[in-house]
């Protein structure tokens, strides 16, 4: 028996039943695996279920059926407090926009996972500054998000997503709010982290230029995974 994959999603289905509205099936029996060290993308047009899938993989939402396993251990369906602890330990997140806590400076944002983990102040500050260096943001460590450009904010978000050395960074359309040049340089940062620091990335996008950077692309269509 081979070693369990880093992430394994099995027959994930998700149906939203909004109040007073018809049921929406966002995902239908999606199964996929991710291995450590991947730099992979989930592609698909708007409404195809990319965010839904990433949220379920990231334990932010529960699947209607199916399960998510990390290294063979089931994490879907954990109670909220345990799911939070799991994310704090094992996952990093980057979102499309408004990612950072506006009242905290760049370095305070970057170190926040370590604050939640209870890492002593001096150590977490040093680690946050280090990762800010990796993403080229150490000179703006003391700025608040409103004084940073969109691309700079996303770099800080990248720093925050890796500061606690997670198993995987899940990024839902991290470049959607950026122009193509800024998007490309953010992808440069992510790619170098993947190569030099062995950070596993799974991100979503519908932009072909962005998708072309991924080493593996999974296509979603109407909630179904297209055959490779």
């Amino acid at each position, binding site marked *: 028996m081979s070693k369990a994959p880093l992430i394994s999603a099995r027959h994930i289905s998700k149906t939203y039943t909004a109040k007073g509205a018809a049921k929406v099936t966002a995902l239908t029996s999606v199964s996929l695996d991710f291995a450590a060290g991947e730099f992979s993308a989930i592609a698909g047009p708007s409404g195809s279920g990319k965010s839904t899938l990433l*949220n379920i993989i990231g334990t*932010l939402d529960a699947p209607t059926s199916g399960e998510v396993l990390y290294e063979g251990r089931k994490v879907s369906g954990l109670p909220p407090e345990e799911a*939070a602890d799991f994310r704090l330990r094992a996952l990093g*997140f980057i979102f499309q926009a408004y990612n*950072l806590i506006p*009242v905290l400076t760049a370095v305070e944002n970057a170190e926040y996972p370590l604050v*939640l983990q209870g890492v002593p102040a001096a150590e977490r500050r040093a680690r946050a500054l280090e990762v800010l260096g990796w993403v080229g943001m150490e000179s703006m460590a003391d700025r608040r998000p409103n004084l940073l450009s969109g691309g700079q904010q996303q770099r800080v978000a990248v720093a925050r*997503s890796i500061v606690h050395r997670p198993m995987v960074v899940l990024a839902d359309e991290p470049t959607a709010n950026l122009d193509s040049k800024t998007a490309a340089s953010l992808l440069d940062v992510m790619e170098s982290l993947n190569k030099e620091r062995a950070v596993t990335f799974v991100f979503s996008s519908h932009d072909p230029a962005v998708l072309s950077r991924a080493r593996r692309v999974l296509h979603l269509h109407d909630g179904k995974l297209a055959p490779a």
Partner: protein
Amino acid sequence: MLRLAWRNVCRNLRRSLITVASMACGLAAIMFGQSMIKSVQRQLIEKATSSITGHLQVQNRSIKEYKFPDKYIDDPAPVEAVLARQAGVRAFGKRINVTGLVSSPAGSVGAMICAVEPEKEKEITTISSYLTQGRYLGTSDHEAVMGDKIAQRLDLRLGEKVVLMAQADDGSMGAEAFRVVGIYHTGSTTFDGQFIYVPLAGGQALLATGRKVNQIVVRLDDIGLAERTRQELMEKLGNRPVQVLRWLDIDHEIVAIQTFQNAILDIVLLIVFAIVALGVLNTLLMSLFERVREFGVLMAIGARPRWVMKLVLAESVILGFVGTLLGLALGCTLITYYGKAGLHLAVGDALSYFLPFPKVIYLRFAWMSHWRALLAVLVVSILAALPPALRACRLNPSEALRHV
């Protein structure tokens, strides 16, 4: 977390300040109201006890209507002996209080005749300090001091004679002539228009009572000693046909006024609390709603739902503390200021009908009430945070993140 909570409070500084200010003003208003009512009540008690009732009275045991004693203490001397040895008693004096008729050539009016021991009465009540014409009682048994309204109505001047009439102890009608030696003005319609003071010996002659009196009035070192001293005196006087009464047993009206005022105060407090609570609730709900996405981010990066709840609570505790402190400072400033400058109160005019009541009230702190208000504002501000905090705690991270 405290750092984040503090920064969140400072983020929308104007809104936080408005919340804090509304709490502070609410608390200050409550403290001011409490202080005002309590100061009025203090004055009321002070004036009532120092102008007529004294702190304690000894009366015949079978009297039911303490304000108008209709029976006599036959032998006051042993009671006086006990009072003279009682700790906490500053002064005491015998009195006869009866209703009667005051007549002059110009007419007659009904009046409260107070036959007092002039020198002792001076130590117990302040009536001698209100004299505007003539002098106080002292040289002869057939002198009288009266309010200016009676004097006016009977067209009396200093040195002229009045005839007092009242039902004597034996049931006959007593009548004696007294010379007007002093006229006082207290500002109280009741006192100025209905009270006339004569020496005890003159009163006893009028009423043919011999050495009997119908009350012995006691002034204590401290009004707070009233109940304890009453009990001690009751023990020592237990075998005599007398009873010891406190000022509040005699003056039911004051107690009724107090109860009424306290009830009004409670209602006002409740309204102010409701306003403060709704204000805080509104601010917190607004700030929560604006930040749903942010809570989603916090939960995504690993904050437990309960941690987010604590964050919201911490923010309101900060607001509550700052608001309470500011309110306390503002309240203290107001009370201190009006404690020095005095406050002209319409209620003073109204009450002065019954008692010589000052028109200007000097505010005092009423900490017994203040600290309750303080605690209540603090608790209310935290309780108001509970519903939004619980909502934040129940948010699903993916839904929170979709929120814009």
